[in-house]
């Protein structure tokens, strides 16, 4: 794609792009015009700029007609999933503006405490979602928890994909004994229910957010390895691969130019469904008390803090509803967004599955 193609595309969609530019400019003016937001934007100009960039990018993707957007428009659930995820990305980026860390804090991921009383307090001005056990502000924890959720899921997928690429690539490409050995290796890792293996790994390595990520990556890589192996096997015998080989292309070139592009879509489906699953597993580990320390902005840790309070006071069974409802809703919507998006990707990209499922 040369510069000429880009300029041609720009001219073709000029009115639509003008609309996007107007939207971006309008948002920027609005953020600077309202005194309250101006103050906060001034404190974190980078976050504001990133968010503006995101809005412009998403809007551009949406207004320029393409095969993908055309199919997404026909499937309202995929739009809902896309919207949810975009909203969570925006919240994660805007965290320093939505919930500014106190001036004295060293690490913005540590939730500020308002005193040390254990009984949670209900939502009120200043604490829109209330405070949970230990007076941690729920709103702050949920906003910064969105960053934690993205960090955990993206890092875990990156590690799992890297291992999966190596193992699956070797296995599918060389076949025979290599394949057999690699597949038995995945069998061993798949011999555990995922949460059980993750619990063991964290118990042995010690409890921390990093070890939670390592544990989940150890649990998740075999799925990617198997997916990639299957894809390579299915394209290996194809004519165009044989042709490329006859033309003198090396192994690496064939894998990079022919195999990976063909495997990319199932990969997208799997990883977007996996994003939700990873966040659930990470939160489950935090819930079991194997995650980061209490006070770290993490949805699972917040839900763990709610456990003592969900039965309420005598006569008022739902007195402390907010300690479970807000973090529970955050994690539900996040996972729902990825699941909707993953299901929709699958329907869009694989018509065969659409017919049967």
């Amino acid at each position: 794609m040369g510069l000429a193609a880009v300029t041609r595309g720009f001219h073709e969609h000029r009115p639509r792009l003008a609309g996007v530019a107007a939207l971006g400019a309008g948002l920027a003016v609005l953020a600077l015009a309202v005194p309250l937001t101006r103050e906060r934007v001034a404190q974190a100009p980078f976050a504001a700029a990133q968010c503006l960039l995101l809005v412009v990018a998403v809007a551009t993707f949406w207004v320029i007609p393409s095969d993908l957007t055309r199919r997404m428009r026909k499937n309202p659930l995929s739009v809902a999933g896309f919207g949810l995820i975009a909203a969570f990305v925006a919240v994660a980026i805007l965290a320093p503006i939505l919930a500014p860390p106190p001036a004295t804090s060293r690490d913005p991921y540590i939730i500020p405490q308002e005193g040390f009383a254990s009984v949670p307090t209900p939502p009120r001005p200043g604490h829109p979602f209330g405070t949970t056990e230990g007076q941690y502000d729920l709103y702050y924890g949920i906003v910064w928890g969105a960053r934690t959720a993205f960090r955990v899921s993206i890092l875990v997928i990156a590690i799992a994909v890297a291992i999966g690429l190596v193992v699956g690539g070797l296995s599918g490409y060389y076949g025979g004994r290599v394949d057999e050995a690699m597949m038995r290796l995945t069998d061993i890792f798949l011999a555990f229910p995922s949460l059980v293996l993750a619990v063991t790994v964290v118990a042995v390595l010690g409890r921390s957010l990093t070890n939670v990520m390592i544990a989940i990556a150890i649990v998740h890589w075999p799925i990617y390895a198997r997916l990639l192996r299957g894809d390579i096997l299915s394209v290996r015998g194809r004519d165009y691969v044989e042709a490329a080989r006859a033309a003198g292309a090396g192994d690496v070139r064939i894998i990079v130019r022919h195999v990976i592009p063909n495997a990319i879509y199932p990969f997208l489906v799997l990883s977007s469904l996996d994003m939700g699953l990873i966040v659930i597993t990470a939160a489950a580990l935090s819930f079991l008390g194997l995650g980061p320390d209490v006070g770290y902005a993490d949805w699972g840790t917040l839900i763990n803090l709610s456990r003592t309070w969900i039965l309420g006071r005598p006569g008022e069974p739902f007195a402390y509803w907010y300690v479970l409802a807000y973090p529970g809703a955050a994690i539900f919507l996040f996972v729902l967004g990825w699941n909707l998006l993953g299901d929709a990707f699958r329907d869009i990209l694989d018509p065969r599955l659409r017919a049967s499922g």
Partner: protein
Amino acid sequence: MAAYIARRLVMLPLVAFGVTVLIFALLSFLDPAVRAGAFITNPNQLKAIDSIIRTYGLDRPIYEQYWTWLREVFRGNLGWSQTARMPVREAIAAFFPGTLELTFYAFVPIMLIGVWLGTAAAVHRDRLVDHLSRIFSISFRSLPSFVWGLLVLMVFYGRLSWFPPGRLSLDADLFVRSGQFHAYTGLVTLDALLNGQLWIFADALRHIAGPAITLTMVSIALLVRLMRSSMLEVLNQDYVRTARSKGLAEPVVIDKHARRNALIPVITLSSYTIVSLLGGVVITETIFNFPGIGRWGAFAAQQLDIPGVTGFTMFVAALTVLGNLAADVLYVFFDPRIRLR
């Protein structure tokens, strides 16, 4: 078919061997003093930890240590679990019946509701039932089991006082531990029936309902989707069209011709469902304070009871491998298209 199953059986010890290597590789991250715990069967031995390290060669090269460890595991000595205050082997024997019972009471509703809802969704494709089942399955899939569990506890115990946590009420527990009650199987509901004590049966059922509902909610989505797609595939087959064109009534076609065939993959995959339930009990048993193997495993992990965690993990891995093997065998057994090959 025999060759396929034989191949799987040959692979079985290989995978089991790999599982022990993996567990031991994890253990080797630990300090020798912590690892010595795996060889302790009696709390008094804790005082002589240095001599245990030397006796079991925990200062020796890693492959030697592996063989020593493996020998002990094969003898059934999995070490002393500090959280259970008994040897790991006894702890597994003590906690597993509760988990088995819970799995059963979640598995039955999952199969019944899943098959019914999946059939309804496929028969009325793109109608209200189908859309509702899709919305339910994606929402249930998206809500983590611990949030579900806490909501169930909040509503059914906090508000309605129907399903209390734990395994039995105090008076029922005292009666079960007394001489008047004979524990035949360790499964409390079954034992209560065998003893003719209906009130204990009712009490045990009330306690098991909460975790069983939670597990059902979390695991049912997969089965509904599987049943739906399997049913849709069968409804497109020639023999269903033939049955319809013969003039058979629609309910007969659906019940006798379509559903029976659509059940094949669902039945074979049911052992996967059991395996996923075994993973799910870690969370649900912890929330409902239900004394099963999952709550013990989670507690052992929190308290750094390493022999407990590894024993629990290896036991669950063994069950998973057997469950997956059962699924493969059932699949070959039920599907004549594969058998003939």
